[in-house]
């Protein structure tokens, strides 16, 4: 193992989408116990720098592994299928239609209840897409299809963010 090991190697996990969040959290803490700069606080600046590199790397991997969307995108990239979220925004028309409907529903909603109802609908859709990701990545290893699902999830994440902002303003 070294600083260039991939996230799964670093955490000693199977390279797959399905992960146990509680086990992941435990592993993160166990690794930080070994590498955190606090463990080397009495050993000078150079030791701090090296420990920090490891600790930063562990935190970076943890951020990616614990978030299902980031984890899915990372698995696609490890398999050689870049997600290219910025440059590639072509999506199926049906999906785009639904996005537009949601945006309109958000603009029209003028109560917290209406926004909450929309949030529930979006959450349900997200859950379904994540299940689809699990099946594409872990069962059929169909990375090309998984990339499309990941992109759809990114749209949903952006929309959820905007929706939460609206909820904050309404609450």
């Amino acid at each position, binding site marked *: 193992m070294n600083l260039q090991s991939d996230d799964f190697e670093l955490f000693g996990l199977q390279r797959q989408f399905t992960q146990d969040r509680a086990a992941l959290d435990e592993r993160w803490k166990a690794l930080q116990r070994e590498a955190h700069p606090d463990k080397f606080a*009495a050993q*000078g600046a150079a030791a701090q720098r090296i420990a920090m590199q490891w600790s930063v790397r562990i*935190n970076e991997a943890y951020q990616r592994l614990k978030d299902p969307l980031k984890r899915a995108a990372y698995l696609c990239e490890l398999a050689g299928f870049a997600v290219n979220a910025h440059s590639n925004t072509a999506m199926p028309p049906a999906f785009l239609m639904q996005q537009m409907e949601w945006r309109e529903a958000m603009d029209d909603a003028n109560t917290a209840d209406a926004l909450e109802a929309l949030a529930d609908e979006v959450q349900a859709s997200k859950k379904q897409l994540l299940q689809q990701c699990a099946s594409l990545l872990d069962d059929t290893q169909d990375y090309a299809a998984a990339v499309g699902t990941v992109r759809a999830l990114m749209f949903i994440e952006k929309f959820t963010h905007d929706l939460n902002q609206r909820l904050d303003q309404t609450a």
Partner: protein
Amino acid sequence: MALLQISEPGQTPNPHERRIAVGIDLGTTHSLVASVRHGVAECLPDGQGRVILPSVVRYLDATRRQIGFDALDNQVNDPGNTIASVKRLMGRGINDVDASHLPYALVDAPGMVKVRTIAGEKSPVEVSGEILATLRFRAEDTFNDDIFGAVITVPAYFDDAQRQATKDAAQLAGLNVLRLINEPTAAAIAYGLDNAAEGVYAVYDLGGGTFDVSILRLSAGVFEVLATGGDSALGGDDYDRALADWLLQEAGLQVDSLEDQARLLAAARQCKEALSAEDIVTAEVDLSAGSIDLSLNREQFEAATTALTQRTMQAVRKVLRDAGLSKDEIKGVVMVGGSTRMPQVRQAVRAFFEHDPLVNLNPDEVVALGAAIQANQLAGNNPDGDLLLLDVIPLSLGIETMGGLVERIVPRNQTIPTAMAQDFTTYKDGQTALALHVVQGERDLVADCRSLARFELRGIPPMAAGVARIRVTFTVDADGLLNVSAKEQVSGVEARIDVKPSYGLSDDQIAQMLKDSFSTAQADMQARALVEARVDADRLLLATRSALAVDGGLLSAEERSQIDQAMLASEQSLSSNDAAHIEAVSKALAQATEAFAAARMNHGIAQALAGKNIENI
């Protein structure tokens, strides 16, 4: 320097050596120093048995000063030279500070505001340095020994400039800073370890000048901060000010001098404190324009200050949203800071969380005690300790982009240490420099965020426009402090970075202050420096020998001979009486062993991580 002292689990580098480590709570109103003795953290008292040191410095003339109670006693007589609540000025420019109620005069200065005193213009860093030095001497007198290092607490919501200013102040006071830790996290350590607490807790910390709220998950010695929020300019002082304004208004008077201001604030503070226990008090204060003699009940005080308490509760709601938790998932709310003695504050917290806040700890001492526990572990005195702090960055870091907009690089509430990289390119042919403006805050416009620093990347190899790929890495270390490095990816050239901090002090300024500082002038610095240089050099020699004994095989003959030569020179230098010479030779040895030490340490960590993985499978 002691990089080679890689200890085996359960072993300190030198098992017989106990290092004196202290925790310091550098507060707005008062400060404390604590240490772990015989396995228990306790606050260290002064010669008269008082653990609290009022955070007040009075300048008597160019060289003499009073610190603590003596200064506080003279605040009303000599307000202009008696600096209280200096924490509110740390890392701040003149425009950031509300000076309307300050009983002393501020001076605009590049980087950070200064205070005008009889002893000249003083930086808040210097004033804080005096307070820290006083606590350092107290600890040294208590143990009759030198202090190995200190953990200093800062409000969780302190930004980079305020943290850096605190670290600079510690340097001025001659303290080796083991770590800056956040005040609510320190309180959680003291509380969690005392109560064997597990689960998700909120810490509500209302001090003299700052408010923090942190949400932490406590489990098996791990203190994981889930989110933090607050207001670094909201505290008990503001309740005093609001009450002072109310008293003036009721009496139809105004303040005409710094003395009036100091007297009025002192009276307001007394009333506020008395109203925590009593329902009605009398406010008596003589001003130059007339006297105030008013009866004041708790309801009136609360009505005059309720907006402040409401502001804290807004921050509480926001931090819960950031943590993605609802209030019924919070197992308990720990109250910290003297201002949480106010019944209205406890009532507001109780009403929101629908259970009684935890007030069984002394709200004044708990932060220093937690810092002491962490200091003891960081110093290596507690090798079996399983305390692990996983704290977060309180405010997002970003850079200025076109049109004065902020591009977020490191989002708030990310666990530290953390690093994020961003690629930039050149827009002109042959361009060799690039300017970056780093800001901190949550707003979208640069103008609404806090400017931290302007970086100039230089030494980019000339290329056609848009070809260079300059990867700029923003690293936030375990103290919550930002470092920036840059590398051109095509050529591999490291860009040189010139930092112009928007706030804070340059290294030269610090060096000058160190020279001028009383705390260093007082001690016999030269004799002390010689002893320290010898001890340090000796330690490094010892560590190098043992490292060579274990892993010498990793070195080539040439590498080995270079290290041997550096060791020989260092051994010979020990008989010299020139501290600078001993240090220089020792530094050369540290440099000669740097690569070896780094390889050993990387190897050690990789082994330990792999070991964890195998254990857990």
